[in-house]
């Protein structure tokens, strides 16, 4: 059954869209990732204009983050103070990102920047995850790995001003650090059409030193507002948010996420991570191939100046 998408201005199979939402939802449920970094490239692969894919995916992530954060909130796994500092950075970054998006689009380079961002970030994350899962799958023979980790390690970042106490995260650090992370992830969220959890979560663990229990809930909390900001600004500046497409994707997505969560609890962690690494690297490889391979027609029709 075909359905006409009013903003993307194309006809697509309704079951394909629901299936994509469901499939990415299952993966996000299994791995605890948002799935934006898989959905946006998939939408572009099926012919949705990149500008519409990015803006619409931001809208969908609002919904999936809300349903995710409620579960974490009930368990008290959200550091609201940290979330708000990250959020301030996120709003600044995503507002700048949407502006940058419009500028790049007018220059005719937005597709390139979207693709390059995906290749770089998916490549780095995929390789890191692949290494980690291979290392954990190998027999844990290498001695000396049981070095005790200190509660806090002190780097130069601890000398930054505006120190703040984050009780739930058990941290006393400069507010500039989460603010900066928020800005960077906000820019990426706007340009790549992702929530940014896949960058935020490692940054919170390794750069901020937050306890892993509060990381996912706090990152989801701030993603809601950052993607809402992206949705609003994309709608106002570029009119590229397709609510019908977003609704179809999120319908499949929320159901898939529940299935995925149940599946995930039955599978083994390191194999899961290896599987996710393969998926991430496959998407990365496809985008890279499209950038490097000789196009069938070097000419294309750009954005229409109405």
């Amino acid at each position: 059954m075909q359905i006409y998408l009013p903003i993307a201005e194309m006809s697509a199979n309704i079951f394909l869209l629901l299936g994509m939402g469901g499939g990415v939802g299952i993966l996000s449920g299994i791995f605890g990732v948002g799935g934006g970094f898989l959905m946006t490239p998939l939408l572009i692969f099926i012919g949705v204009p990149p500008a519409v894919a990015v803006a619409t995916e931001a809208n969908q992530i609002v919904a999936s983050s809300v349903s995710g954060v409620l579960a974490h909130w009930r368990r008290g796994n959200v550091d609201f103070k940290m979330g708000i500092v990250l959020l301030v950075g996120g709003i600044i970054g995503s507002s700048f990102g949407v502006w940058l998006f419009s500028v790049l689009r007018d220059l005719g380079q937005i597709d390139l920047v979207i693709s390059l961002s995906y290749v770089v970030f998916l490549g780095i994350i995929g390789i890191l995850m692949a290494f980690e899962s291979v290392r954990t799958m190998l027999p844990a023979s290498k001695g000396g790995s049981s070095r005790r980790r200190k509660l806090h390690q002190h780097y130069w970042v601890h000398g930054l001003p505006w120190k703040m106490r984050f009780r739930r995260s058990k941290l006393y650090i400069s507010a500039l650090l989460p603010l900066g992370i928020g800005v960077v992830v906000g820019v990426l969220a706007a340009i790549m059409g992702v929530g940014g959890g896949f960058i935020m979560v490692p940054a919170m663990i390794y750069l901020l030193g937050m306890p892993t229990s509060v990381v996912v809930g706090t990152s989801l909390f701030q993603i809601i507002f950052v993607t809402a900001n992206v949705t609003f600004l994309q709608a106002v500046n570029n009119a590229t948010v397709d609510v019908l497409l977003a609704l179809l994707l999120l319908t499949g997505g929320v159901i898939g996420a529940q299935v995925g969560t149940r599946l995930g609890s039955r599978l083994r962690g390191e194999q899961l991570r290896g599987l996710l690494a393969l998926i991430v690297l496959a998407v990365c490889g496809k985008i890279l191939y499209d950038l490097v391979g000789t196009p069938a027609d070097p000419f294309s029709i750009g954005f229409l100046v109405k």
Partner: protein
Amino acid sequence: MNSLRLILAALLLSLFSGPVWAAPVVADLSKYVISIDSGFTGTDVLLYGAVEEDGDLVVVVRGPPERVSVRRKGRVAGIWVNQDSIEFEDAPSYYMVASSRPLNEIAHRNFRELHQIGLDALQLTPSVARPEEEVEPFRKALVRNRMREGLYSDSIGAMKFLSNRLFSTSVQFPANVPEGAYRAEVFLIRDGKVISAETTPLFINKTGFLWQINFYAHSQPELYGILAILVALFAGWIAAIAFRKA
């Protein structure tokens, strides 16, 4: 079957109405309005008519003009990057031409350029003047890309004739057809001159809630953005409740 009935209707119409009988060519469309609704996957419209004099028939259907930029990729450090671009004013958003014979046998190119008959005779003027040899590949690329999208087409011999006087051709609109005011023109050409021409308007519009979504997205973007967020917040909340109970 349907087309046959329409042609018969056209025949009857031309038999019984005096003034129309006098025109060398009469033509009409099976529809004047195409509605893009949620199930829209493209549509065909039948153009039919009667011709009273000898000559070649050419049908041209044209969509609203728009400004289009055509970009050319080049290789930079192994990656294909958009490098050069030319903007064209007033490129038709849709263009279809059908004729009974190859167009260059019917009329000279200069003549066709005057009436914009034929994909090689479209008046595509760059918004910034550039040397002709630089513009030409971009112009060809625009036509080629639009043909690939199904928005430009030329079909020779797609004109059906019933006896010598009645004709019909099918005009195909793909799912990605742009909205707006279209024009279907029928030319009767003899010895390189237009003997008679007839123009029929055609409108393509989104309807129902698709129209509303599109209308609000462009006319009330702030409200649209806020509603999109509220819908997403509500959907996420509903999902969280539904699956907690389950």
